[in-house]
């Protein structure tokens, strides 16, 4: 038996540590630990709720926008404050731009090299590679010349002494299965994707005034002044800049990213049998279509035990079951006490012990819904939509599964989605849906302004006494909720229950593991020294240990250690 620890310990940033016991070539037990204190919300106590979002978006360096959004929504919920339709649509366009940027980066730049073997690329025939790419989609960027250019760069890099970005790839690993040509196609798109994720981020910058850390939000709406006759405001010129960006991003998502994700899934169909883990799913609705947020373009819901037929919708932040159902358990987390508390009563008093397999071992609390661990993220998002018959979700999911089945040479249905590969595929499906909705929300905004509505902000006013609110956002990594208690116009409690705490959750008082931990059990590991398979499943969740500080460490670091037990 061996115990694997993957722990980027020496850099004070990533904070995710995975421990797995491997027995007979498979993981028998796993622990997920966040190695840095996650109590950043306490900095908000005593502050003005109108400025909370400015701090909240510094919780995390990667998901700044989503925390800003959940924060203003939480305060608006506490005040029962509607926002103007323009504000809602501007926020939605920002959220779509951010999510597309984030999903593209995850697929190509954070996880592709788990599946793509760079060392095989010199053996590829660029003309054949271009033909394979053309069989997957009619994207114009797949010429043999383009493939040859990228191949040349890879060859030069492999011949040099500095391997740079590929220094840590698990080359020639027995779990790598793509042909040299498919590897070359994927790496060509890796480079093209750099440009399109940047364009998606530009949408956020134009509307949000700055990225990272948008500046245009306000409790009650947005601070974008709208006037088609002014050069200094949000005008048609700027709106058409956004349209032109989406006109480039949407084809990339639908004709490159989605087909690539389907191809990887089709060539690695065995990963639809691995990594199911926790099969309770939770997603909240998002992209509201009116100022009251009473209807949404992406549905929310939950179901337990993998049973799609048992789906229960979540209708928004006013949904009583959601407001009551969420608790956080600290039995195995480095905080004082045991058991669970509702976020509005949540406390964050650190109580550090060492890493104790059966005691406390993580800075992440264990969120639970109706007492159960829940899996969140694009898979939950897609499955709750599919289960409710949501047309857009069904169209893109069926399209994707059709492509996967064709490549795999056997039918792969929605029942196989609850798996490591299902999580990768869902992120691409969700991106295709968001890309389609971008145009709809852009048109909605232009039409509403053209009707003469230029409002973007409703003034908040704070009552005496205590009020509570929750702000929801279905973020790239899943359900995000910010919970606020405001007393006499000042924040007295603030808790952020973030997607990665749902998924990276430690065990709870009843000993039930969180989604990462459960999904790793049973994962085959060919070579414990190179635990590529574990990374594939962990990466399928797109972990983001938000809250982090990051300090460059010029002295190098220890990465994966393997102890034979």
């Amino acid at each position, binding site marked *: 038996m061996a115990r694997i620890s993957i722990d980027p310990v020496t850099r004070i940033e990533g904070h995710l540590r995975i421990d797995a016991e491997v027995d007979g070539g498979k993981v028998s037990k796993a622990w997920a630990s966040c190695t840095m204190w996650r109590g950043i919300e306490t900095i908000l106590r005593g502050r003005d709720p109108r400025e909370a979002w400015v*701090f909240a978006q510094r919780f995390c360096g990667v998901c700044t926008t989503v925390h800003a959004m959940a924060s203003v929504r939480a305060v608006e919920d506490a005040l029962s404050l509607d926002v103007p339709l323009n504000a809602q649509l501007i926020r939605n366009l920002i959220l779509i731009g951010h999510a597309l940027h984030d999903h593209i980066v995850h697929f190509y730049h954070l996880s592709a090299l788990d599946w793509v073997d760079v060392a095989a690329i010199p053996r590829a025939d660029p003309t054949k590679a271009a033909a394979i790419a053309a069989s997957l989609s009619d994207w114009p960027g797949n010429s043999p010349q383009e493939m040859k250019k990228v191949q040349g*760069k890879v060859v030069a890099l492999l011949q040099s002494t500095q391997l*740079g970005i590929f220094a840590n790839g698990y080359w020639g690993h027995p779990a790598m299965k793509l042909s040299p040509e498919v590897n070359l196609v994927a790496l060509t798109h890796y480079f093209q994707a*750099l440009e399109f994720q940047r364009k998606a981020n530009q949408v956020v910058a134009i509307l949000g005034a700055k990225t990272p850390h948008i500046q245009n939000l306000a409790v009650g709406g947005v601070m974008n002044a709208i006037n088609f006759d002014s050069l200094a405001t949000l005008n048609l010129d700027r709106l058409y800049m956004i349209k032109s960006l989406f006109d480039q991003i949407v084809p990339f998502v639908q004709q490159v990213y989605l087909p690539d994700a389907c191809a990887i899934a089709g060539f690695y169909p065995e990963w639809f049998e691995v990594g199911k883990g926790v099969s309770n799913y939770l997603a909240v609705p998002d992209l509201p279509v009116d100022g009251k947020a009473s209807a949404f373009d992406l549905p929310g819901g939950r179901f337990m035990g993998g049973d799609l037929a048992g789906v229960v919708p979540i209708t928004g932040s006013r949904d009583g079951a959601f407001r009551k159902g969420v608790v956080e358990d600290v039995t195995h987390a480095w905080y004082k006490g045991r058991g669970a508390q509702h976020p509005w009563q949540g406390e964050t008093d650190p109580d550090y012990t060492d890493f104790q397999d059966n005691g406390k071992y993580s800075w992440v609390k264990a969120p639970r819904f109706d007492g159960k661990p829940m899996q969140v993220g694009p898979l939950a998002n897609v499955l709750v939509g599919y289960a409710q018959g949501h047309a857009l979700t069904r169209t893109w999911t069926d399209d994707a599964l059709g492509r996967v089945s064709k490549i795999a040479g056997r039918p792969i249905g929605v029942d196989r989605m609850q798996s490591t590969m299902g999580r990768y595929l869902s992120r691409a499906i969700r991106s295709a849906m968001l890309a389609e909705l971008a145009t709809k929300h852009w048109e909605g905004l232009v039409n509403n302004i053209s009707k003469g509505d230029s409002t973007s902000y409703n003034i908040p006013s704070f009552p005496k006494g205590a009020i509570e609110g929750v702000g929801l956002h279905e973020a790239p990594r899943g359900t995000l909720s910010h919970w606020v208690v405001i007393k006499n116009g000042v924040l007295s409690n603030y808790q952020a229950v973030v997607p990665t705490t749902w998924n990276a959750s430690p065990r709870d008082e009843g000993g039930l593991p969180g989604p990462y931990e459960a999904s790793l059990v049973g994962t085959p590991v060919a070579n414990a020294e190179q635990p590529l398979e574990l990374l594939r499943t962990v990466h399928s969740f797109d972990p983001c240990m938000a809250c982090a*500080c*990051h*300090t*460059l460490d010029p002295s190098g670091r220890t990465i994966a250690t393997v102890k034979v037990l």
Partner: protein
Amino acid sequence: MSLAIIGLGNVLLGDDGFGPFVVELLRRRYDFSPGVELLDLGTPGLGLISYLHGHDAVVIVDAVAGAGNPGDVRVYEGAELECLPVAPRVSPHDPAVAEALAVARFAGTGPLDVCLVGAVPGSLDLGASLSRHVHAAADVAAEIVRQRVEACGFPVQRRDADQLEQDWWIGPCPGMPRRDGGASASRLSTE
């Protein structure tokens, strides 16, 4: 020709906010010539690549874990940075400076001239302020950055009055009025 001055770090975690602080200090103290961009990027991970794009030279300011006393300032040249080992990507925070530079270089869109001005932090505890030694180091780092920018061919003009005031995440200076009207832990404790 264009140059970016990039501050990295989390402003809510004490001295990790060193990079963004130095960028704000430079923004208020100097007028830079066209072609120079000042960017507070927080902790962008691989998101850094987008901001390297299109610049010929980049000066990064960051907190560095290393031997030395809090407030020690050291300059790392590009080659030194790119030799850092690349860790396996676990979360999007993990690919940090070295990897972002390597990706940008490999894609052919990265800056050729790179340096990092780093300070050893004293405290990384939760809080929106720098410790005394690191606060003092900001002046040292700002001067190094200014010289570097001028050496790259961009004249830098000091403003008439030092316009540095305390930013929201740095907290109030002794004797200065509080920006948040005094809403702080003290008010909370009376309830």
